[in-house]
């Protein structure tokens, strides 16, 4: 986990090298990790060093600057893409209870799913909307800054071995059908119904360096802000505020919050525990 080249005697050196590395990545490739949680980034970098048998961060930096493919793999290591279907079933229950009735009053609405990773959450929401009879009335934008995960998301192909857990989550979330109604099995994989993604546009968008993506009625951004330092989190919450229509809904991960972000007064709390907020109509 930690690389032999670093210990408490050269912690300062590592800090300097990390700072240079983040600066170099930003200048060369435009990805800005400078305000991501330091402990998290350090862990990923040291992990990458030991996997690629590169002795220290300065040599990693050299390689990254010169080798685009190498950087692309490194990027995968920095962006934690772990996700699952119907993670936090209680959240989906709350959506159903608190938000869906309001969406039903709209003729048409837009959803922005930011940091969607490989798409499991997108298909979960699409299933929920479908069961509520709303899928045909919506447009979903699903974005991430990692193009590889977006490819997987578009395909909607997942490992069969994960389905048992997803099925459990689906039932707990109050799903009204059977999860197996929505996918077909193929060898060790399952492929989700293309109907579900017919309303989804998958697109590359970086929350740190890009601007408002679209004006929408609901934003889901779960388990992305936890990787950002406070100031960056606050800025991204500001971006969400600007992207929402008045009365629009913001859903964060269960360990994320708008508390102390400076935007607290501009939102109403819909569900404190499930982190569902509503942009106030001022």
């Amino acid at each position, binding site marked *: *986990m*930690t690389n032999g080249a670093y*210990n*408490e005697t050269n*912690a300062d050196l590592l*800090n300097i090298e990390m700072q240079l590395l983040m600066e170099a990545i930003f200048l060369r490739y435009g990805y800005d990790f400078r305000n991501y*949680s*330091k*402990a*998290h980034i*350090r*862990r990923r970098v040291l992990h990458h060093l030991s996997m690629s048998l590169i002795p220290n961060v300065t040599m990693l930096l050299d390689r990254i600057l010169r080798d685009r493919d190498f950087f692309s793999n490194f990027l995968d290591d920095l962006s*934690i893409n*772990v*996700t699952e279907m119907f993670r936090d079933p209680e959240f989906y229950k709350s959506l159903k209870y608190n938000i869906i009735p309001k969406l039903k009053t709209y003729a048409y609405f837009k959803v922005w799913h930011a940091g969607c990773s490989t798409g499991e959450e997108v298909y979960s929401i699409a299933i929920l909307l479908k069961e509520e009879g709303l899928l045909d009335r919506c447009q979903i934008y699903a974005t991430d800054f990692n193009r590889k995960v977006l490819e997987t998301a578009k395909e909607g192909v997942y490992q069969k071995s994960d389905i048992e857990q997803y099925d459990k989550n689906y039932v707990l979330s109050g799903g009204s059908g059977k999860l197996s109604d929505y996918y077909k099995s193929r060898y060790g994989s399952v492929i989700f119904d293309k109907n579900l993604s017919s309303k989804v546009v998958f697109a590359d968008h970086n929350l740190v360096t890009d601007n408002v993506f679209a004006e929408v009625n609901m934003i889901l951004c779960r*388990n992305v*802000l*936890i*990787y950002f*330092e*406070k100031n960056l*989190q606050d800025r991204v919450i500001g971006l969400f505020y600007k992207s929402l229509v008045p009365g629009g809904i913001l859903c964060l991960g269960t*360990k*994320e*919050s708008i508390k102390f972000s400076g935007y607290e007064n501009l939102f109403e709390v819909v569900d404190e525990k499930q982190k569902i907020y509503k942009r106030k109509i001022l």
Partner: protein
Amino acid sequence: MNYKAIVIGTSFGGLEALKIILPGLGKEFPVPVIIVLHIGDHSNDTFINYMNSICPLKVTEAENNEEIKPGHIYFAPPNYHLLIEPDFTFSLSTEEKYNYSRPSIDILFESAAWAYSKNLIGIILSGANSDGAYGLKLIKEFGGMTLVQNPCSATSPTMPRAALKMVLPEYRLKLEDIAVKLVELTNG
């Protein structure tokens, strides 16, 4: 030595052990105590409420970006890794399980060693797997103090044994002696 934080890792048998240790720290305890207890996916609320009812110190679940305060007991939230940032705030991560665990003791201990180096006390208590052994070794390498519950007094000796295999700790104590030792170490 001026200790600035204590990190504790434990799994099976941990709740019983913590019920004895944490109230024993008294109400003037001068440093934060940060704990990973493997309890599966369900919420921490019940036992945090319970701990609050028996501990004079304030017990809460660690929150993302929260500033770590002395005399406060923090638990990692279920299903998230807990890390300590260089500016002594918490951060959380949903990365893969490590040692089949999320939260992982190793991940907490590693980040704590970087943040506090020699001003840290690392503790391994009762547990049924070997998470934390590597992290404890790192704490020791960074000059921190290490303490392992005597496996013979642990409900489940696997975790303390695994730690003892990797580290020769400064202290190897029976459950009843741990709180007293911590009070002594942090009052120096």
